[in-house]
């Protein structure tokens, strides 16, 4: 295109893995929705959105990532206001509000992206000083407000993911392990007080989260997921032949439980293939962190890696009954426009980090 050197730095392998994951996902969405008349076209919708998302990714990858450094305050204030408005609107109408603009965008997904940029800016400003408690607490404070707002939505899953993003970025940014222990101990000590301070409905959300038998729907879903995966065996029952999937015993199978469809129809082979693709992607993402020209770029890569890793693990963990049920989609695989778009944007951001790492480029 305009500048051949730009494309030389572009990580085609990473985008290739992403394309494979999206294709894998669309294929499984197709299999998961053939038995429900009203859902049969979803795989096409997903591919269309992937097309739009890929263009957005290319555009983002051409914008110098350092530009966002200057914008971080606007981004942060913007997302906090957005979350607060949604929360108030939700309280007023008596329902929960996780959707924006008639359901087109989930602000929770957008929040992750903004938090990665904001944290990267704040931590990189104090590069090498994160072992000091004031700076650590500053970064933590920045994260706590959106975490709380998201938790109240209620979207406990996203709230935890944001917390994990902070943890991963702070650790790579230089947080002392001693402080991590201190923080863990502090939370453990404070938890009874926090528990007492919480309102009843908040406690209910946490107990439901920790004890799936309290929610018969979740319990049923996980039980069916285990049956699906367990009955899949080595090679699975074959694409489109999963009885749990095709006879609809498995629920929310094209979104949160799509891994169970893979486990049932393609067996351990399909699941390991998925694992390898995700690990490969994470390797490419952490490679960006290694290659990044500045701490800001490196921390962005760490944040993106953290969110993709954490969400993948939590989603698959739910399917395998290792993690309590959260409505967390599997990156690039689960059906869902906001999630797919957000993850493609993060990939674009990483490409931008690669393309605009000027200093190192000259050194090479």
């Amino acid at each position, binding site marked *: 295109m305009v500048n051949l050197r730009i494309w030389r730095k572009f990580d085609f392998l990473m985008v290739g893995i992403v394309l494979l994951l999206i294709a894998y996902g669309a294929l499984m969405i197709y299999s998961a929705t053939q038995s429900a008349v009203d859902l049969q076209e979803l795989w096409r919708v997903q591919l269309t959105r992937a097309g739009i998302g890929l263009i957005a990714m290319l555009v983002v990858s051409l914008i110098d990532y350092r530009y966002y450094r200057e914008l971080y305050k606007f981004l942060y204030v913007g997302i906090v206001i957005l979350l607060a408005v949604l929360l108030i609107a939700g309280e007023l109408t008596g329902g929960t509000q996780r959707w924006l603009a008639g359901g087109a965008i989930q602000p929770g997904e957008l929040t992750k992206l903004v938090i990665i940029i904001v944290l990267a800016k704040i931590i990189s400003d104090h590069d090498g000083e994160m072992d000091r408690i004031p700076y650590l607490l500053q970064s933590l404070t920045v994260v706590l407000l959106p975490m709380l707002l998201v938790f109240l939505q209620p979207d406990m899953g996203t709230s935890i993911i944001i917390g994990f993003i902070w943890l991963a970025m702070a650790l*790579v940014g*230089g947080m002392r392990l001693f402080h991590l222990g201190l923080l863990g101990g502090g939370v453990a000590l404070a938890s009874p007080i926090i528990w007492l301070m919480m309102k009843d409905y908040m406690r209910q959300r946490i107990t439901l989260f920790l004890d799936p038998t309290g929610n018969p729907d979740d319990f049923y879903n996980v039980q069916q997921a285990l049956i699906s995966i*367990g009955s*899949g065996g080595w090679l699975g029952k074959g694409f489109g032949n999963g*009885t749990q999937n095709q006879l609809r*015993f498995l629920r929310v199978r094209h979104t949160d439980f799509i891994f169970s469809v893979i486990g049932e129809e393609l067996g351990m082979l399909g699941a390991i293939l998925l694992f390898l693709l995700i*690990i490969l992607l994470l390797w490419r993402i952490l490679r960006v962190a290694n290659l990044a020209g500045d701490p800001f770029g*490196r921390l962005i890569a760490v944040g993106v890696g953290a969110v993709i890793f954490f969400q993948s693990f939590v989603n698959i963990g739910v399917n*395998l009954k290792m993690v309590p049920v959260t409505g967390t989609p599997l990156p690039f695989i689960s059906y869902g426009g906001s999630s797919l778009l957000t993850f493609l944007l993060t990939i674009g951001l990483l490409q931008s980090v690669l393309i605009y790492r000027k200093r190192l480029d000259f050194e090479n």
Partner: protein
Amino acid sequence: MTEYQVKLRLFIFQLTVILFFGLLVAQLWRLQFLKGEEYQQLADRNRFRSVEIEAPRGIIYDRNGKLLVRNRPIFDVVIVPAYLPDDMTAETQVFAHLARLLKLPITNSGAREIASHNAYFRSFLHHEYTRLPNRQVKNSRSRLLSKTPRGIKDAVDNAPPFAPYQPVVIAADIDPAVAAIIEEKRLNLPGVFVQTNSERDYLTGELSAQILGYVGPISPGQVENYPPPIYNPNDNVGLVGLEYSYEDQLHGVKGQEIVEVDVTGRKVTTIGDSQAAEPGNNLILTIDLDLQTFATEQLQAAMEDSGGQSGAAVVLNPNNGEILAMVSLPSYDNNLFAQGISAREYSLLSEDKSAPLVNKAIGGLYPPGSVFKIVPAAGALEEGVVSPHQQFLAQGILYLPNKFFPDDPELAQPFYCWYREGHGLVDVVSGLAHSCDIYFYQIGGGYAPSGYEGLGHERLTAYAERFGFGAPTGVDIPGEGAGLAPTPKWKRLNYAETWVTGDTYNMSIGQGFVLATPLQVVNAYAALANGGTLYKPHLVKEVRNPQKDLLFQAEAEIAGQLGLSEETRGWVEEGLRAVVEWGTAKDVINVPGISVSGKTGTAEYCDRYPQCLDRDGRVKTSHAWFVAYAPSQNAEIAVAVFVYGGGEGSATSAPVANAILRYYFGIDQLEENADNAQAESENVALKNFTARLLGGDTHGSAGAAIHGFVLDEQGQGISQIIVSLSADGEEIVRLPTGNNGQFDFNDIATRLGDNWQIRLPDYPASNEIELSLDGGTRYFVEFQAMETGNAP
């Protein structure tokens, strides 16, 4: 932080990734290998079900092959809550769409307080309205029906919690056309399904309800009487009538198949070989539907004219006990029970004073009155108590002297004849002919002042029992009463009084304690008419399997012998002949060319004392009886007609019997038929029919079958209309419709064509029915004439 530390931490991150994915792999391995078998079994348990295939219940025909009961396919609309859209707006759209189609409210919470002001709502409370099937919300398996329609949303909200896959019945037995629309629109109606079931359809309703009975759910206390595998507790079984007594024949044998089901429990495919259901066997009755219809109309008219509150008529063949007609009025519509009767409707029926649920022909116990007189007559002649020509002077009143003061006329008890003027000198023939009470008092109870002994109560009871009184006849439907042939012991036990001559007097004229059912009465006369054999009356002539093979043929079953000499019988019969010739029924019975014998009866009863007395203190309310058989020699038919509170037997019941006899011997039909046929053919020629496929169900035989009706604008069947069945345009068979417009094509070889047409060749403007036939399936079709004016 040094570059090295950063790289180290990134490396640790990578290790963490590997470690955590390692955990996932370990869990995957545990699930898929260590516990793979177990989960495979759980997956199979999810999807495989062993399900019963309902066996179609046997069909019932009258003696001429006319269909009385069929199995009608019914359609229920159910919602599986789990498949409703998650979005509230979309869900409400589904409800609204369904509400329009089913004419049901979405919700009626909040509508309660204004219910009485709301005509739409009130209309559901109306008794008749609720019988319109597509407006009624009910659980067809339950008698606890709600009269007020639940709103669709209310029904879904009230579904059991934590069972989102359990279908909720929204509307039962909806119009097949609406069912078809819902099936067509199922893409717009996620979560809405149509379930098909089968229900008994009693085509003749009230006309045959007392005979056929009905089916209904097994009551909880009876479950152990209907053991698996033949039954399951949700089955419908025959509860009353032939449906009950021939339950073993009718129910069939359930089939079994292993099916793969989806999460809603709907069958996806059949796995392996299924064991087909064997349909129940069909009953062919001794009843002649036309005669039954005619007798019902006549009895109904007689009841209305006389003000009688109920009535019964039984027609049977005296030579084998076949019952040709059995009418009990008022009757009820047994379809109400088959559809699941509401508590309100049931209490209306069961609390009705005229007891429509009781078959009065077999279960009504009434004083027989004068029709009982053949018993003392036969007994006295046979025992030599009286000689055929021995005469008694009947002065209209007989004074029975007091037992302890025989010489004090003041204490004597008067016994009256119905004819106060007295019949003069009376022998057995004129005694029967005029129904002279004085004659029967004396031959039954004797007369002390003249030293005449009479038959006496012991022998009277013995002869009553020979004629079948006091014991059930053994007819093949439940609900039969034994009646009562009283004995001194019975009186002592029930009244703590001794038997006196007056009791014998009363019994001799069929009053007092003696009670009989109309069936017992007609059976007694039939025994006399056939030469002295008491048969067990029956309603089922043949039982055939669905392939039409004869499984059982009813034979004349002898219940006893009268044990009368030829001579005795001759004299009694002559008396009964005289009743019609010149006696109490002389102007009423008129069957040209056929000699008829009979007996009138006017049995006094008193339901409400003293309103039943007239000014002279005599009982004025009476039941009207008439019993007849014809021809007098070699009788073919015996008839008993009873009208409760109908007054004089000769005035109320005898004309009904006369009409039945005339009908049976075809006196009136010859001319009428000629007229009707002409009128009908002119009328019908203008008609233009619309064709409808009503539905189908499975039955046992390999071929397909088509059952249908040709109806006029009012829904009455039209006979003698040619119906043609063609395969791919080539005519296979044509046949005329039967008396109630019915036609049946059975055992159709489906390989003869792909597209089948049923049409009325004589009415080319009518549309035809096109269908593809599957073996083992029974299709129900209907041609109905369009309102005149549409005719070409």
